[in-house]
């Protein structure tokens, strides 16, 4: 039996087993289907980067997207919160069309203010953390709840402290991002996204910019989120995480989804040639 590679990343970080308790439990998506993407197409100039991508993510599901670089996996999850435009297809999150209004069967880009409201439901964690460097860890976390949700400062601070404590950073509230390690920054970034109580979390290669010894602490937080029932789409190269935590693994190549299966099937009996060669290289 192969040990999932995630386990090689040891960590001393204490992650709470009631992470979502800090934000009042698992945020409830409105329906059973959180993400419904159908026939999404996108071009960068002449390059057809997403080709008829369809994907459904159900409540509390963890979908892991794998694939070689340039396969469109990052582009796809950036479309889910409309950081990227699409040219064809539809993406619904919680039953709402993301980024567009449909006028006579055509997609018309929505107003920025409306898109901003839609994004409140969708947390995103970036490869390069993107913490606000002019704000402390705690200020990073309370920024959106106070500025976007209109939460009172005292309440936000309390929630922010609770989140920090639960990702093992209770004593780092006053630290600026530049004073934190990569792993610590990414845990703050996850806490910052959670503070908006999102119904869906998107992870865009959250461990790819980390030193190997810090990968474990971030995966630990993500595993805990999955265990507590957060709905997640994770783009990653961490096969151990995919195998251990994923409910479903999606393989992308050249802008298409080439295979979609449970982790057991995906890793032990891949059907598509592209998946087999990809796994052969990576495992």
């Amino acid at each position, binding site marked *: 039996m192969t040990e999932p590679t995630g386990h090689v990343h040891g960590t001393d970080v204490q992650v709470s087993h009631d992470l979502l308790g800090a934000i009042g439990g698992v945020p409830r998506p409105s329906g059973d289907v959180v993400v419904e993407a159908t026939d999404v197409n996108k071009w960068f100039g002449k390059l057809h980067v997403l080709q008829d991508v369809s994907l459904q993510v159900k409540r509390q599901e963890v979908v892991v997207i794998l694939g070689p670089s340039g396969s469109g996996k990052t582009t796809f999850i950036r479309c889910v*919160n409309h*950081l990227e435009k699409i040219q064809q297809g539809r993406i619904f999150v919680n039953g709402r069309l993301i980024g567009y209004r449909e006028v006579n069967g055509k997609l018309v880009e929505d107003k*920025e*203010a409306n898109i*901003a*409201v839609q*994004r*409140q439901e*969708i*947390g*995103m964690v*970036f490869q*390069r953390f*993107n*913490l*606000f*460097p*002019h*704000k*402390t860890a705690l200020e990073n976390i309370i*920024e*959106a709840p106070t*500025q*976007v*949700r209109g939460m009172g400062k005292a309440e936000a601070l309390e929630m922010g402290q609770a989140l920090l404590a639960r990702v093992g950073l209770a004593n780092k509230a006053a630290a*600026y*991002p*530049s*004073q934190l390690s990569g792993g610590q920054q990414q845990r703050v*970034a996850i806490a*910052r*996204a959670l503070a*908006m109580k999102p119904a869906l979390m998107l992870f865009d290669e959250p461990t790819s910019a980390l030193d190997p010894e810090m990968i474990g602490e971030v995966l630990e937080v993500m595993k805990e989120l999955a265990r507590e029932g957060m709905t997640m789409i994770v783009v990653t190269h961490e096969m151990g995480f995919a195998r251990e935590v994923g409910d479903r693994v999606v393989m992308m190549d050249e802008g298409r989804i080439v295979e979609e299966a449970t982790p057991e099937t995906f890793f032990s009996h891949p059907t598509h040639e592209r998946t087999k060669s990809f796994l052969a290289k990576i495992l």
Partner: protein
Amino acid sequence: MQFDTTELISFMTNWSVILPALLTTVLMAILAQVLGIALGLVAALAGRSRNALVHGIAAVYVWIFRGTPVLVQILLLYFGVPVLLGGIDPFPTTYGSLPGLIGGAFVAATLALGVNEGAYMSEIIRAGILSVDSGQAEAAKSLGMTPRKTMSRIVLPQAMRVIVPPLGNEFNNMLKTTSLASVITVTELVMVAEMRYAGTFKPFEPLVGISLYYLAMTTIWGVIQSRIERKFGAGMNRNEEAGFWSRMLSMSRGAPHSGGVR
């Protein structure tokens, strides 16, 4: 030819003349700079607009006011605009209830300096905004922040780090460029020096005197500037700031343009 120290001191301590002139210079510089920052911010944001007309207006504004001498702009505003307006004089000697210091010439000079400055500030602010990693705006947007909040709370505060050093340079320059206002009869430092030697036929002493005052003003500003820069460095991991003296004595490194009357 001899340098008359007594005349220098007598001129420099003739407070009833010097203090209003100093006040005029500083007030004009501050008001013009504030106007310049405001116009520059508007022009920089307009320059990022997807609306071609808005974008175009900002570009033409910067093009014209950076492309013509500020002295000509001052003269055009003070002598040209009243002609355009026919009978109405927007720049009378005094404005009734306002203090005598703030007359029409003062207002015209301040406006012209401010509008000119806005064109430069627009470029400085634009560069500042561009210096902020695009991931910052993406992170803010992904948290549901509107474009306006993203700009005002996330992008601009970080852009300040890049904006403030050249802005300090701009204000240093502005303190000295106010001297051009003397050509439209604003009683600032150059004007009082000229009035002095018109009577004494000793031009050297009053000119040295006002130079010392300009130097004092720019030196004090240098101190204030380094304080401000330290404030905007919060959370930024960067090398130790250049010290006060190295700043004072150095050429203005890294500034997009420096010194001189435009």
